[in-house]
């Protein structure tokens, strides 16, 4: 998978227009990033919370676009916002889970709700890989999904996650290997 830092070339002009609050400049940004941000967020928060969180990512983007310094890392900037919001939401959900545990009520696990009817993927395999992804440690899942949906280089993922590059690579390798093993065990 070839991931290069093409943000500057691809998004530079669009981002400059967005920084001047040109409304039309945000349309291609939403079209490109909404599915990718949604795909990333959906593996960390319950489905019922995903759409609100996706919207919040773009609202935060609008509010802070002027402070973005165009260094060719627009995708990393977008997914940093998404990651921060996801972590905040996960913390809120964990607090909610603790409150529910204290009141001895059964917690309803986040439902996986694939929207895969319109493409030729094997729905059983998709369901299995979704379940396997959710069984991975959060840090491994995060590296894998940032690679898959944000299409970021490992150097950038390491920076976002505040880890050494070697750690990011190791997490990715271990997570993917485990994912593959779980899928093979299923077969």
């Amino acid at each position, binding site marked *: *998978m070839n991931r290069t830092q093409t943000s500057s070339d691809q998004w530079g002009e669009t981002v400059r227009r967005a920084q001047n*609050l040109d*409304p039309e400049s*945000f*349309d291609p940004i*939403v*079209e490109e990033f*909404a*599915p*990718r941000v*949604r*795909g990333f967020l*959906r593996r960390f928060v319950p489905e019922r919370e995903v*759409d609100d969180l*996706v*919207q919040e990512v*773009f*609202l935060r983007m*609008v*509010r802070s676009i002027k402070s973005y310094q165009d260094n060719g890392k627009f995708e990393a900037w977008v997914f940093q916002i998404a990651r921060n919001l996801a972590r905040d939401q996960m913390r809120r959900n964990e607090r909610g889970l603790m409150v529910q545990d204290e009141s001895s009520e059964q917690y309803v696990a986040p439902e996986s709700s*694939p*929207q*895969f009817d*319109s*493409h030729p*993927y*094997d729905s059983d*395999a*998709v369901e299995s*890989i979704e379940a396997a992804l959710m069984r991975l440690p959060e840090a491994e899942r995060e590296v*894998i999904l940032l*690679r*898959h*949906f944000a299409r970021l280089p490992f150097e950038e993922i390491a920076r976002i996650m505040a880890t050494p590059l070697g750690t990011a*690579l190791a997490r*990715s*390798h271990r997570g*993917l*290997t485990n*994912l*593959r093993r779980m*899928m093979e065990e299923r077969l």
Partner: protein
Amino acid sequence: MNDDQRRQNEIDQLEQWLARHLPPENVANIEHLKLRVRIELGENWLGTHLDPAGDQVDAGLVNEVLNALPQSERHRKRNARFVWACVGIGMAAVLAVSIWNSSVSPVSNGDLAMVESNDELWLDSIEESVDEDLEEIEDEISELSDFLALNNDTQWFDDTDF
């Protein structure tokens, strides 16, 4: 090939395997999302221009722009409905007050006393006018009697004429 390169190759292969199994995400409400972003942009712009602490305060410009916004047909219909609703509510309120006044408010003793006193005044005024009329008639009769007595001996007309 060193360990890092071998690991990087394995990662590449595993990522390609994942990409074949993990479908792209659909966003059903993408147009709604674009609209929401535009609203946020507009609100940010408005907030910047209306912020009294900001450097770009230009309420005149903002009002000018707001006034220049085209009023949609929907807004016009909504405004018309609002006006008619106000008229309807006003008429209903007037009707309700009048019904309440006519049906609920009892006739007090004060009201009756006022009517009775007015009746007395009215009757008094009738009696006075009747008395004055009678006096005039009596005066006329008296004058006529005097006139007849004065001319008692004078034959003014012949009984045979009748």
